[in-house]
């Protein structure tokens, strides 16, 4: 079982892993996925509340905001474990990215309200600030005291369950980060069905008026938001790494148990070598994530940035490849909806397409590395 290998002297990481495993016992991921899909629900809010209770939400919020003040290392362990167990949640966006945006904001009542809600699970704070890996800034203009927003943004998860959105708006050449209540006038949704059967929404803002106290950051630096997105990317990478690892384990177990021509198919050399290659990919994904965590904990911002791009690209490709190959190794069974392996593939595609695809991130890596 490939996994993130990191120092864990005080056993904190192992405890986090165990706590997710216990959660998965009572909330098996595939069961939740099947229950959610096709009926228009975008997330399991009851489970989200449980996660809040477990202390997993707002993990990266600073202690001043009531957060655990833990780092990306702990977040990665949780995300990896969720990925392994296929537990669906908008963790990377509605916990990690939200936390980091709030952490970057100056003190304000709105910031405190959102942070408290996020930690308690009572507010579901969904950032809608990027698409296709690029920042999306909506059009804004001031009308007296109010800010008026127009525009739309695609690929918004949990847009039904959200209580608040965070968006970026461009006004007079400055970028503002705004909090918008989900029930604000002028805010509407159009849904598409996502690959996992849950909706991905297009958020449409038409003449949406935001009060000044809803402004979280007056002048957002792109760098700050990019850094927050990189941490969300890392969380998604860890989740993908967990997905890849478990899909590999499933392929291994299935081929050991499946007998054809009087032998377990895992005893055929072609299958063995293919499993070795898949295992290698899963191991490389895990190492890439650990590498990024270590750079993120260090001082070299550029190195950290590159390491995150590499980790997301590797983990996305590994998860998709392993699940595709696993389906093939399962044979006809892999092509059924009954088998969980297909759900792993769909999750891999879903997370792989989020926050920038592998190919795009690789090109970005080289361009940024060469720009040194």
């Amino acid at each position, binding site marked *: 079982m490939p996994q993130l290998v990191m120092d864990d002297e005080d056993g904190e990481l192992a405890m986090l892993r165990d706590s997710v495993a216990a959660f998965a016992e009572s909330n098996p991921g595939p069961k939740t996925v099947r229950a959610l899909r096709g009926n228009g629900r975008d997330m399991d809010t009851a489970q989200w509340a449980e996660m809040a209770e477990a202390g997993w939400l707002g993990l990266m919020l600073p202690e001043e905001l009531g957060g655990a003040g833990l780092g990306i290392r702990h977040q990665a362990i949780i995300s990896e474990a969720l990925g392994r167990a296929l537990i669906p949640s908008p963790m990377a966006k509605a916990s990690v990215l939200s936390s980091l945006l709030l952490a970057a904001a100056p003190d304000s009542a709105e910031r405190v309200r959102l942070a408290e809600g996020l930690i308690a699970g009572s507010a579901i704070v969904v950032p809608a600030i990027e698409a296709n890996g690029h920042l999306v800034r909506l059009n804004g203009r001031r009308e007296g005291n109010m800010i008026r927003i127009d525009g739309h943004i695609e690929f918004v998860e949990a847009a039904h369950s959200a209580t608040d959105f965070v968006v970026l708006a461009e006004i007079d050449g400055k970028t503002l980060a705004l909090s918008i209540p989900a029930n604000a006038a002028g805010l509407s949704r159009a849904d598409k069905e996502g690959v996992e059967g849950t909706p991905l929404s297009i958020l449409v803002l038409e003449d949406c008026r935001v009060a000044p106290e809803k402004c979280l950051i007056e002048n957002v630096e792109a760098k700050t938001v990019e850094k927050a997105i990189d941490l969300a990317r890392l969380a998604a990478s860890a989740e993908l790494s967990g997905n890849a690892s478990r899909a590999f384990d499933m392929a291994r177990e299935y081929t050991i148990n499946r007998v054809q021509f009087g032998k377990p198919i895992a005893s055929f050399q072609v299958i063995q070598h293919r499993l070795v290659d898949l295992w290698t990919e899963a191991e490389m994904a895990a190492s890439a994530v650990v590498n990024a965590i270590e750079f993120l904990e260090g001082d070299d911002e550029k190195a950290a940035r590159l390491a995150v791009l590499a980790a997301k690209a590797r983990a996305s490709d590994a998860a998709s490849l392993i699940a595709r190959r696993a389906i093939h190794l399962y044979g*006809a069974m*892999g*092509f059924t*909806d009954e088998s969980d392996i297909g759900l792993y593939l769909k999750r891999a595609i879903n997370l792989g397409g*989020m926050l920038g*695809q592998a190919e*795009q991130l690789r090109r970005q890596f080289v361009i940024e590395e060469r720009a040194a």
Partner: protein
Amino acid sequence: MQTDWNALPDEEFRAIFREWVDANCPAELRFMRKQRPTYEEVKDWYQALSKKGWLSPVWPVEYGGMGLNPAKHMIYVEEWARLGCPRIPDHGIGLTGPLLIQYGTEEQKAEFLPKILSGEHLWCQGYSEPNAGSDLASLRTSAVLEDGHFVVNGQKIWTTLAHCANWIFVLVRTDKEAKPQRGISVLLVDMTLPGVTVRPIANLRGEKDFCEVFFDNVKVPAHRLVGEVNQGWTLAKSVLGHERIFLGAPTRPEYALGRLEKLANARGAFEDPAFLSRYAKLRLDLYDLGSSFERFAKILRSGGELGSDVSMLKIVNTELYQRITEEMLMLAGEESRYNDDLETENGDVDAMNLFLDSRAPAIFGGSNEIQRNILAKAVLGLPG
């Protein structure tokens, strides 16, 4: 008087066939998203073909077929694909019919063939079992002869469109003592008999294309046996003759590449040399698959027989199909997260549908690993 199609020049036959099909195949059935529509969905088209006498291209004329030789059959299939006609439920035409024509009694032929042509009997094929996928020799569904009936017990799986069929021809074990590949027989089973249960299985795309079929003491009259008892393995293997080539016909990758091109045009991707380069590889792989397909088609046209080497087409074909659909998701960017079709100004592109569908052909009809095993032994003559 029945036309002797084989006597016509190829291009004349092609023109006649195309013209009529183009005029009669309903527009809404062309280039369907669904690989396997049900009889109900294509009934009118099925009946139109039946009435015209063109439903069954290969059956001899005396049984209501067109009696096409392989060369003309190739044209039939090519035009069918080019015009985007839907696949019709074809197990009766493609499998039951040839089986009965070759091995059936006169009574069996008289009873069953007309009902296939009329659409009254919709057939499915009961080969695979839960523990006999690629390895048919280990099948366990049993049939015991008692009082003029075979009593059938067991389970079939991956039975395509069984829930839409009313007859099934099944491979059953009639001698448990014989070596695994002996002792197998073929029975024709009325699916409305007591003890037959069908359970559809949803696939990755959420569609119910295939089923499990359970047999619980099903009493099948003895005259429903095809050929001799315990000779079913030979029968089953001989049914697919030259038609194996169509497993390698580049229809699916062709369709998928067309969709990829449409999406790429809509998204301006051809402006990106990186995409152009990857697209070019796929385009040329498809083009070259066409050249290879043509090599085998030529053998058929000139009256030759196909060898095991034709399996190479199936491997190239199915793996190319996968690569094309993977590229489609890459091209889609974050839209790769959609189950819904992707919108373009020239109509929707069913990227995820194709991506998921492309997982199947490399598995079914003998997995690509099995095909490679066969090629290694039968064509390359490798030891061991």
